[in-house]
């Protein structure tokens, strides 16, 4: 750029100045980075190795490809800035090196025409993106985007970087302007380097690690409470990966924008949970690093910074984690902190009743285990007791499907249909207990284990080839968590079984339904387990016209029951229940009068919501099985 300055006969003071500035910036950067690494090392160990290929592939799609960011249109602006950064940073590396050691035998990058062109093109693109971002942030002001000083500083720096760089090349190379711009650019870059780890733009450094070191296990498998103990109250009780979350967070708010608890007005904000952890880490870190507990006081994370209300409001619907561009892991954080609350008996009275009932009776309804299979009484078909006679399918019915009056009707329909299709199935009767999926997510790990052990003991005594379940929550834990405890069986959701039965013409729809319906993807079926198509194919086979809601499939909006929320008192601050928001969304669809569900809890949740939202008569909530029975012919299946 300015060979006169940094050529063979470079003026010594300029090199010296550059060295001084560089060392200062690098020094500041290193001090901070080392400190942050020390903070991370306060956390316990967690295994995140192996499967290098998949990890690298994730870095390619999520970091380089911005796959998740691009689910929102403004992701494009970020993509532009990101790639601009990559190009500029690469070029700048060479520039800096050459500046520091002028004798290096290569030209300045901008002296190479294609590089200069790339810099110019990206410079303009990035400037445009910065303008777009600034307009969004300061003119459109989306309500959920937090206005922070950080963001303003960074946009200004990036903008100035581009302006200085473009200007330094546009000006007469010999002019003082070019010189000033060049120096301006270099100094800004170094200032940026120093500022970076002190700001939320730390994500720029931490996010690739966060993505690379993400949990590659199934989404539906929570890390068991193991050697680390149960709950996490303070930094030391988290793992290094959990502590990495706040460093990777760019405070983009995507998690909040999809969080049903946040949107319904409760105290929970997934972003704030992560931010609270950072606040705690920066406050408690220095004290913990000194290692002398008496030497200074810090607030506890749980209770001091994060309130129990925030933690209990989570439905574990996975929307936040599904959206997070840096692959942060909010739910495990929340569950770790819930475990701490549970360990100290700090649970709300309704939840305590539910947990006590679960541990005493194996169901949260507080009913006798003998009543679990009460729904089979008076049923037109005989339901095998699989403890006494083997069957091809063991039907794990689940709590709601067994005890809830609304869901029981659907359960009976499932039984009739399976019988009609000649499926050889049986149930565990009173030997089945709650699968524990949500108990685990409440943070009651011991109770989860004890429930799972009871089920596993009962299952081990029966002969069957696969498990079929009506409950997505049971499906999840049976599929992903029971194997850790020694229970390995193929597991099917009943929507998958029905799809097969319809395909194999073991069930024949004789009365095509014709009507327009919409379908709600249950969190634990869809987002957690990717089962989107089977229920849709069943609906199509029944001759319904499926109209999708705006929030569908991976963007499905939780009914609010998951994660044990169904057992708790409603969280303070609630404006509109998630289920009400959801039924309004369904009712707003043109010509749709039926909301089809595939989770027994949803029948209760949405039927209640239809009443409270005043949509009775306009929207009917039906279980998929009820529609199948209608299409297959009720009377036929009843005599069968």
């Amino acid at each position, binding site marked *: 750029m300015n060979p006169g300055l940094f050529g063979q006969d470079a003026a010594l003071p300029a090199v010296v100045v550059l060295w001084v500035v560089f060392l200062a910036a690098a020094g500041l950067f290193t001090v901070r980075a080392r400190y942050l690494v020390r903070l991370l090392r306060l956390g316990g160990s967690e295994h995140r190795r192996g499967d290098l290929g998949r990890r690298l592939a994730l870095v390619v799609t999520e970091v380089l490809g911005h796959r998740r960011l691009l689910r929102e249109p403004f992701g494009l602006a970020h993509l532009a800035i990101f790639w601009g950064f990559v190009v500029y940073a690469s070029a700048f590396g060479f520039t800096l090196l050459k500046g520091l050691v002028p004798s290096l035998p290569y030209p300045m990058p901008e002296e190479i025409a294609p590089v200069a062109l790339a810099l110019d093109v990206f410079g303009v693109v990035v400037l445009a993106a910065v303008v777009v971002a600034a307009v969004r942030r300061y003119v459109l002001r989306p309500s959920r985007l937090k206005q922070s000083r950080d963001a303003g500083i960074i946009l200004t720096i990036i903008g100035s970087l581009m302006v200085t760089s473009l200007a330094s090349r546009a000006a007469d190379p010999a002019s003082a302007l070019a010189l000033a711009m060049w120096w301006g650019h270099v100094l800004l870059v170094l200032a940026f380097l120093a500022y970076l780890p002190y700001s939320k733009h730390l994500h720029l450094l931490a996010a690739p690690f966060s993505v690379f070191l993400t949990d590659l296990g199934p989404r539906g498998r929570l890390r068991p409470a193991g050697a680390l103990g149960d709950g996490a109250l303070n930094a030391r009780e988290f793992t290094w990966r959990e502590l990495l979350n706040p460093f990777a967070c760019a405070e983009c708010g995507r998690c909040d924008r999809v969080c049903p608890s946040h949107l319904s007005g409760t105290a929970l904000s997934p972003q704030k949970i992560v931010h609270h952890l950072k606040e705690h880490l920066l406050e408690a870190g220095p004290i913990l690093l000194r290692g002398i507990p008496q030497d200074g006081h810090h607030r506890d994370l749980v209770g001091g910074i994060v309130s129990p209300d925030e933690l209990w409001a989570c439905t574990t619907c996975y929307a936040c984690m599904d959206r997070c561009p840096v692959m942060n892991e909010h739910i495990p954080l929340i569950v770790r902190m819930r475990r701490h609350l549970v360990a100290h008996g700090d649970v709300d009275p309704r939840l305590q009743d539910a947990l006590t009932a679960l541990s005493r009776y194996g169901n949260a309804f507080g009913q006798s285990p003998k009543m679990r299979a009460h729904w089979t009484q008076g049923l037109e078909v005989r339901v095998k007791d699989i403890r006494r006679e083997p069957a091809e399918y063991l039907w794990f019915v689940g709590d709601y499907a067994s005890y809830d009056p609304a869901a029981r009707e659907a359960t009976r329909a499932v039984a009739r249909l399976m019988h009609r299709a000649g499926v050889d199935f049986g149930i565990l009767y009173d030997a089945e207990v709650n699968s524990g999926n949500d108990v685990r997510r409440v943070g009651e790990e011991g109770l989860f284990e004890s429930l799972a052990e009871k089920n596993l003991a009962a299952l081990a005594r029966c002969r069957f080839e696969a498990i079929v379940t009506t409950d997505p929550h049971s499906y999840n834990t049976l599929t992903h968590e029971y194997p850790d405890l020694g229970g390995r069986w193929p597991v099917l959701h009943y929507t998958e079984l029905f799809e097969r039965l319809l395909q194999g013409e073991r069930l024949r729809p004789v009365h095509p339904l014709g009507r327009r319906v919409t379908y709600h993807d249950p969190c634990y079926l869809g987002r957690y387990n990717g089962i989107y198509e089977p229920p849709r194919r069943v609906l199509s086979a029944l001759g319904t016209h499926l109209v999708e809601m705006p929030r569908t499939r991976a963007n499905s909006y939780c009914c609010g029951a998951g994660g044990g929320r169904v057992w708790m008192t*409603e969280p303070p601050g609630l404006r509109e229940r998630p289920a009400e928001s959801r039924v309004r969304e369904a009712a707003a669809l043109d010509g749709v009068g039926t909301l089809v569900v595939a989770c027994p809890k949803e029948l209760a949740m949405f039927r*209640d919501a239809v*009443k409270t939202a005043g949509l009775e008569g306009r929207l009917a909530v039906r279980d998929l099985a009820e529609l199948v029975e209608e299409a297959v012919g009720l009377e036929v299946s009843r005599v069968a």
Partner: protein
Amino acid sequence: MNQSGRDVWVYVEHLRGAVAEHTYELLGKGRELAGALGGRLVAIFLGEGVHPLTDTLGAADSVLCVEDAALAGFTPQAHASVLRSLAEQQPPRLLLFGATSMGMDLASLLSTTLRMPLVVNCRDICVEDHRIIATNQMCGGKLLCQAEIADAPAIFTVLPGAFPAAQGKSDHPPAVQRIATPVPLEGLRTRFVRLLEPAAGDVDITKAPVLVAVGRGIQRQDNLALAEELAGLLGGAVCASRPVIDQGWLPVTRQVGKSGMIVKPRFYLALGISGASEHIEGMKGSELVVAINSDPKAPIFEVADYGVVADMFDIIPALLGVLRARKGLAA
């Protein structure tokens, strides 16, 4: 057996200068039992300065009134030692207590110290050929147990509301025998300190003509607003069963039941109340009871005049609508 060996004693419960309503229920039943046994009905009245209250105990053949400063505030020990001494001097055939905070304490204590058999929580007591047959209610009213007491003195605690109070009320003053305490009451190891009044300033639900009562079915504190509005339109107040009070959603002064208030409004609307016996004891004197509960087997339907098997949240809005429309018309 001497004369007094056939007597029926009723322990008179009183608090804040008033005789408890169920004491009259005991007197009514005691009257009948004394007749069957050929003995007298004696009301045992312990306290200080309570003598004027004896006027209301005319259903008894006589009132034995023991007054002493140590008996002023109830302590199980002071009252039990006086009762023990009296019973040892002239053993009665039957000693009746209410199945209440005071009666429970005394009956169990005296049963061991006097070595008298005891049947608690009686719903009925009858005499068949000198045998006493008591019907005890247990397991939350799911079970009744008929037990026989052979020809010996015995103690019973009787569930409030088991018998009508009317038979135990009489206008003519009874014969009153006032005696000093038969045992020294100094140096007791329990001492009454003071009475704690409930938090003042709240609605007196015992005086409301209409009560809208909410139970577990209310689910959330915010839902109380619906009940409040309903009560407003009906000209009454909101009360609740114990679970709602335990949640802290309403003050204890709004609690209806054995451990709360005994209410007798003209109209009692039970919303989402299953009807535990503890609650029913507090409200069964209501003139008209309508119950809404989603469980068709809820015991509340056994005391209600009218019942609706439905989700209360379906019915309340409709009821509010009709009442509002009515009010609009009336205005």
